[in-house]
């Protein structure tokens, strides 16, 4: 187990390095720079700035400087928010993004899971078909359509909830973004759970249990549910990635000061280090999540562990 985790972690390093190289090249090849402005800086000031941020070195030198900083756990200073380090800025935005993402995932798991189980138990009834159709709709309607519609309906027309992050307090302002972000995942999870529970319920050993006279609830609780929910574990990785992506849109629609917004802005500002820092953060997050999913699988399924 430990060896497995270690191997996976080690194999993530080349991936990470690739991410860094690609992002570094892209952000550096972009026109403009962190200090460009229509109030063009006089040559002396510009060269002093370049020297202060080592932008006067050759690109390979700068890349090496960045990498060695990284090896020491230093993401460097932000080029736009000159008082702040990249780590501070990311640290500022992460709690907001994490709260948003975690609540959405949770909501999706609860609602999607329940809907999927209910649909599977009432297979081929109107209820099941309704859930399936709803799920299909949920998958098909992208978050950047859902979120503005929510704003239009619940904030502009009904005026129940604030239209933006800075327009409300606490839980209030979380409601619309969390639901908008969760919706497609609810749909996926409902479909996934429904399909897999139906398959488990039709397997031989459940039939045996049923033949022994066990009630449906206890069959579900003791025998069917856990194996039926197993595929969910493997879905968590892609789901988390999708939530992170959707968060960029949701944050921009609701004006939430999270990582997605920070990333877009850092790109527009050519804040080189911040761009790289956030890309690396996301890459590590995705790699970690995938690793966790694999490990969870190992724990839950002994056959994989022994492999």
């Amino acid at each position, binding site marked *: 187990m430990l060896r497995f985790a270690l191997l996976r972690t080690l194999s993530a390093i080349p991936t990470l390095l690739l991410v860094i190289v690609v992002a570094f090249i892209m952000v550096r090849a972009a026109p403009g720079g962190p200090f460009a402005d229509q109030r063009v800086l006089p040559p002396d000031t510009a060269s002093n700035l370049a020297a202060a941020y080592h932008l006067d070195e050759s690109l390979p030198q700068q890349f090496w400087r960045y990498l060695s900083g990284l090896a020491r756990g230093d993401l460097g200073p932000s080029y736009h928010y000159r008082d702040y380090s990249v780590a501070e800025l990311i640290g500022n935005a992460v709690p907001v993004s994490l709260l948003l993402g975690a609540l959405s995932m949770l909501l999706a798991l609860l609602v999607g899971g329940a809907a999927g189980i209910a649909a599977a138990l009432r297979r081929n009834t109107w209820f099941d078909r309704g859930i399936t159709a709803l799920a299909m709709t949920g998958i098909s309607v992208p978050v950047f359509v859902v979120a503005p519609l929510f704003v239009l309906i619940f904030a502009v027309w009904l005026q129940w909830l604030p239209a933006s992050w800075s327009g409300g307090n606490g839980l209030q302002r979380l409601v619309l973004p969390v639901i908008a972000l969760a919706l497609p995942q609810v749909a996926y999870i409902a479909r996934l759970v429904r399909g897999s529970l139906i398959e488990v319920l039709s397997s031989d050993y459940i039939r045996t249990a049923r033949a022994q006279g066990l009630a449906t609830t206890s069959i579900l609780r003791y025998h069917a549910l856990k194996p039926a929910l197993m595929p969910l574990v493997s879905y968590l990785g892609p789901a988390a990635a999708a939530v992170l992506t959707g968060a960029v849109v949701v944050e921009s629609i609701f004006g939430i000061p999270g990582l997605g917004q920070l990333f877009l802005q850092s790109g527009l500002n050519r804040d080189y280090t911040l761009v790289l820092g956030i890309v690396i953060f996301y890459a590590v997050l995705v*790699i970690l999540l995938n690793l966790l999913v694999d490990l969870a699988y190992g724990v839950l399924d002994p056959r994989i562990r022994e492999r």
Partner: protein
Amino acid sequence: MSGIAATGGRRLRESRTVRVSASLLAIIALAALLGPLISPHDYRDTDFNARLQPPALDDFRVFGSDDLGRDLFVRTMSGTRVTLLVAVVASFVSLVIGVAYGAIAGYAGGTVDAVMMRLVDALYALPFIFLVILLMVAFERNFLLIFVAIGAINWLDMARIVRGQTLALKEREFVDAARLIGVSPGAILVRHITPNLLGIVVVYLTLTIPQAVLVESFLSFLGLGVQEPATSLGALVNNGVAHLERAPWLLLLPATLLAVMLLAFNFLGDGLRDLLDPRHRSQ
């Protein structure tokens, strides 16, 4: 008895969804192609006296006009064109890369396969969408970049599926026969394996296109897609958000069209997959 009848009925129903969604898509595509020709307006023409007009029948303003007085119907239709075009071409790009990569890995097997698939695994861990955003933020936006960006995301799935199929096909008699009579591996791949991949590839293509539509409109929504005055559905939705309060039709009409289109694509893909590959049938 009843089980068989139920299966037959379901098949029929599913093929009905396939038929319905396919015709819906055909209608949308046709409207996108012909709509701008029928309308007296041009998608670029501004009219400062007709800004934010609600939908009306006179003057063929069926979708109303936007904040610059441009006709929303024509813009929505030409936006649909752009979205579809980008999605189809990008999917095709991912298809070519994915099929070539997957077939080679699957057919070669052994170390080559292991290395190639390990690379795919590694690429899965990349935060692609962020690199794409970076790409679009940093450079002048053009169609080519969008194709490359979306294709780069989507070919991984295709490569995995094709590889799996190739592994199975490789063991079939006709491949053995070809090998025995001395056909070169390259020729086997091109002449014998690839044609047999066609079915599954087509099915997955119908599932890839809506994903590409999604990515394209996602980028356009963030203002990183096609350049004004050209437009796409995502860009229209984005503009609609800005005028939510005063002109909700600017959001509602393109958003609905986009949703319906994606729904039809997903139903079509699902239906086709079920027909072709019963293993994936949702029971």
